[in-house]
């Protein structure tokens, strides 16, 4: 095929232009903004006041931002382990030849389609309710009165309540990614495995898992990207005013850029931009790390 430079340029340019405007320009502008103090997020550059690394310093010294990052870390790490392992478990079960596979897959994925607002309202006002909630009813029925009287949404338990509710909704999405990865593995490997006399666990350990390395990277990256943007669930679990148990960097950023809920607080869009930069750097680091640790080019399928 003859390479026609004109054609290549003509086809690539529109995409490149759109990419630059929609992705590249905002990234560069945000990085720039993080070095200034800016009151209104859409202020023109003439109204920015240069502050150097002051925004980043402020983030390092604000305890609330530290709390937010700690919450985010626990959501990413503990939530990640829960969601990945549960998703993998479901995926392995679904590919082991059970009946009604399609129905189960749809059911497990369903929470992902439902709006987060609806899900959170259900969890908060029904499941966790201390008056007539699902958990309270179950525990009272089982005569576990001390468990029944736990206030699932008070300061001591709210974070775990939030994490559990969020993971419940996210399992389906990651299960689908695992599923597609497992289904890509050639059936002849499993057949050879069975002929050689391996049981399900050995099959999983020696065939499935090693051949899923690429999918592990995908899942970790997708999980990192979505958990770094953890916002809606935090807002729903702490209406109007933020809570130390549910605050995440995105929520803190929102407060800095648009002001707090009811009180008029000082706004600094530059600080918000700095938070964005910090979070992006975190995700890039995670991505680079997983790429280094999980090399999937030593297997040939």
């Amino acid at each position, binding site marked *: 095929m003859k390479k026609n430079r004109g054609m290549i340029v003509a086809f690539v340019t529109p995409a490149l232009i759109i990419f630059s405007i929609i992705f590249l320009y905002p990234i560069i502008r945000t990085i720039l903004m993080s070095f200034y103090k800016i009151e*209104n*997020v*859409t*202020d*023109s550059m003439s109204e920015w006041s240069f502050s150097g690394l002051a925004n980043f310093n402020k983030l390092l010294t*604000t*305890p*609330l931002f530290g*709390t937010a990052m700690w919450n985010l870390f626990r959501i990413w790490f503990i939530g990640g382990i829960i969601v990945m392992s549960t998703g993998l478990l479901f995926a392995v079960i679904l590919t082991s030849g059970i009946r009604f596979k399609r129905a189960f897959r749809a059911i497990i994925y369903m929470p992902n389609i439902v709006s987060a607002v609806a899900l959170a309202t259900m969890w*908060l*006002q029904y499941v*966790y*309710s*201390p*008056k*007539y909630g699902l958990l309270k009813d179950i525990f009272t029925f089982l005569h576990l009165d001390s468990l029944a009287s736990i*206030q*699932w*949404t*008070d*300061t*001591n*338990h709210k974070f775990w309540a939030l994490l559990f509710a969020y993971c419940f909704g996210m399992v389906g999405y990651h299960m689908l990614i695992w599923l597609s990865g497992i289904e890509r593995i050639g059936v002849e490997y499993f057949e050879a495995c069975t002929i050689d006399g391996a049981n399900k666990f050995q099959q999983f350990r020696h065939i499935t898992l090693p051949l899923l390395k690429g999918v592990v990277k995908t899942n970790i990256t997708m999980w990192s990207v979505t958990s770094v943007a953890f916002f809606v669930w935090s807002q729903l*679990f*702490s*209406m*109007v*005013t*933020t*809570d*130390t*148990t549910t*605050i995440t960097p995105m929520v803190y950023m929102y*407060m*800095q850029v*648009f*002001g*707090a*809920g*009811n*009180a*008029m*607080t*000082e*706004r600094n869009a530059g600080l918000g931009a700095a938070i964005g930069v910090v979070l992006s750097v975190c995700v890039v680091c995670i991505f680079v790390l997983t790429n280094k640790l999980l090399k999937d080019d030593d297997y040939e399928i």
Partner: protein
Amino acid sequence: MKKILALVLTACMVVPMTACAGTAATTTAASTSAAADSTTTAADGTDAAAQSDATVVYWSMWESTEPQGQVIAKAVEAFTAETGIKVDLQFKGRTGIREGLTPAMDAGTVIDMFDEDIDRVNTAFADYTMDLEKLSAKYDYEATANPGLIAACRDVADGTLKSIPYQPNVFAFFYNKAIFTEAGVTGVPATWAELLDACAKIKAAGYTPITCDDAYITCMIGYHLARLVGEEAVVDIVTNNKWDDPAVAQFAIDYAELYSLGYLSANISGNVWPAGQNTELALGEAAMYLNGSWLPNEVKDITGPDFSWGCFSYPALAGGVTGTEAANYGAQVMAINKDSKVSDEAFQLICYLTQGEYDQMMSVESVGIPADTSNTQWPVMLSDVQPVMAALTTRYSWAAGVESNADMTAVIKANVLNLCGGNITADEFVANMKAGKS
């Protein structure tokens, strides 16, 4: 066939892109506000708004489904029929205004008037508002306006009138009169001691005296501290971390006492809004709740029409600087864009919406307080609010300023919830606040 399909799909892709190119460049947050209801004649990219005959572009903070939104829509229709001035009414919702208004105005979108909370319009949007003194004088607006509210509007805008109030509200204790009568509480508590007294009787009658939700819990500490040392000192404490102020310790002791005497709901530390107001207050299990005068409207479907609402100002505290004459009262306000070319017509619309017939309709439909003093008939559910509001002379801002430090609000909230739930003692509360942790 394939070629035609390809052509149609290409057209489908190109046409919206060129249409969107005319829209104001906005952040993704603003694009979700554009996705929110946009009624009547609005098309994307209204830079083409007719300059010949006056059209007033009005961005409203309500949703078209809310009672306020419905009344405004009706009023706008009648206004256009009466005066011939066209109105482009767009319902943006709360987040649409909070996130999208200033970016849209920065990008040059034609917006003539907008509304939001009195504090937000006069601080966050201050640079975009027009001075309304001349227009107000021209239409003699202050003849029938509530003087306290107009004074508050001037106050927040450093002495100039830049916004017109409507939907006034006051933040005070709302209570279930039936429970008070049953428990034998006569009158309303005006001091802390009387409040404790009333709580004891209510508890003896088998009801929960006081409840709250996490969303409003900061108002309880805000009011309590402001009663003791005044709002300015509260702002000082919170912004400069002066938690060793004796008022803080006093608050902790008082609320620890409320908890230990069993006057606070057992669920208060776990209530996520609106659990407390819906499942405890509205269902008649709890008696009192520090909330806003929008509360009866919010829970009217749960309480039914027979619920008897009472209201009293937060009690005075011994040795306090402010008393029951101080509370957070405010309003939603309408303002005009300082770059508007149709400011006179816009002000006419404001008068139409906030006075006379449609102000009365707004008050009735949204169970709210009328803005026009010539509308003397308040909704029955709010009749007890009238004397409370009439007696107010000092205005607190939201939560009496306790939320002024964005980095501390979350910590305050968590600690107050723990204190009210009995998870920490008064001393631990003060120690936590000094250390800035929860």
